[in-house]
């Protein structure tokens, strides 16, 4: 299997094209979810910066990604954001930030890609202020067995091609890492979810 970095460097060129359909449908949901962001924001997995148009203006955002090729593509979008975005090449599972540095942390389809989701969430909890918010826009494994079979079958392929897992239980993982989900909204079936959690 390829490393995450290699995989994302490889897909960076056609990433926008692949996500075009999703973004068209997700923009409205992301805009309403991101309204909950405030203060110092850590944006994990900025990718090519597609979601930056959905952030409210005037936020101070630190955006990280594991792929240099993705970060390079996101530069233009980060510059056009009406606020401040600092881009950093960093792994979400072992960031270089001090404890309790951020008021909000955002993840968009990140916890399906990291190798150890609980470890990543524990790292997020470390850098998040105790009264801070974790805002997640993630896809998870469906509770419906028929949809779950489809996701598990496809997961083998997506895992091989780009290291993305379609069978993660992010809600359960967040609770394992010490978060309490206090807002839970389904965006598509019970697969794509908009979640807000707080550390406990």
């Amino acid at each position: 299997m390829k490393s995450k970095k290699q995989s994302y460097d490889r897909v960076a060129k056609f990433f926008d094209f692949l996500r075009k359909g999703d973004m068209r449908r997700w923009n409205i949901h992301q805009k309403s979810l991101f309204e909950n962001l405030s203060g110092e924001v850590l944006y994990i997995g900025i990718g090519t910066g597609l979601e930056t148009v959905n952030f409210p203006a005037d936020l101070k955002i630190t955006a990280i990604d594991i792929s240099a090729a993705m970060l390079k593509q996101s530069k233009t979008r980060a510059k056009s954001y009406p606020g401040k975005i600092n881009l950093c090449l960093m792994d979400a599972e072992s960031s270089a930030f001090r404890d309790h540095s951020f008021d909000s942390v955002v993840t968009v389809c990140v916890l399906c890609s990291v190798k150890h989701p609980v470890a990543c969430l524990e790292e997020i909890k470390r850098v998040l202020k105790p009264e801070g918010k974790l805002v997640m826009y993630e896809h998870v494994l469906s509770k419906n067995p028929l949809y779950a079979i489809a996701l598990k079958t496809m997961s083998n392929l997506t895992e091989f091609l780009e290291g993305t897992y379609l069978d993660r239980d992010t809600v359960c993982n967040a609770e394992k890492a010490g978060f309490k989900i206090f807002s839970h909204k389904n965006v598509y079936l019970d697969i794509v979810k908009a979640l807000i959690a707080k550390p406990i």
Partner: protein
Amino acid sequence: MSLMMILMVLLMPFCGAFEVMIPLHINAMLVGMPAGMLSTLPSLALFDVTLGGTVIGFFVALQVYLSNKRLTEL
């Protein structure tokens, strides 16, 4: 299955990954495979198999649509 993969790659950039993946998968599993097997029976015309598959496929897509409506309205 291969037709499903081709359709998925073609439709994904326009309709969204999960919106394409879920109905296509269920159709491939519930409709595509039995239809493929039935089409080998000499007593059944290909047109009948295709028509049956299309009708069941429509109901699968409708079920996914209604299921999505119910789950996202919660």
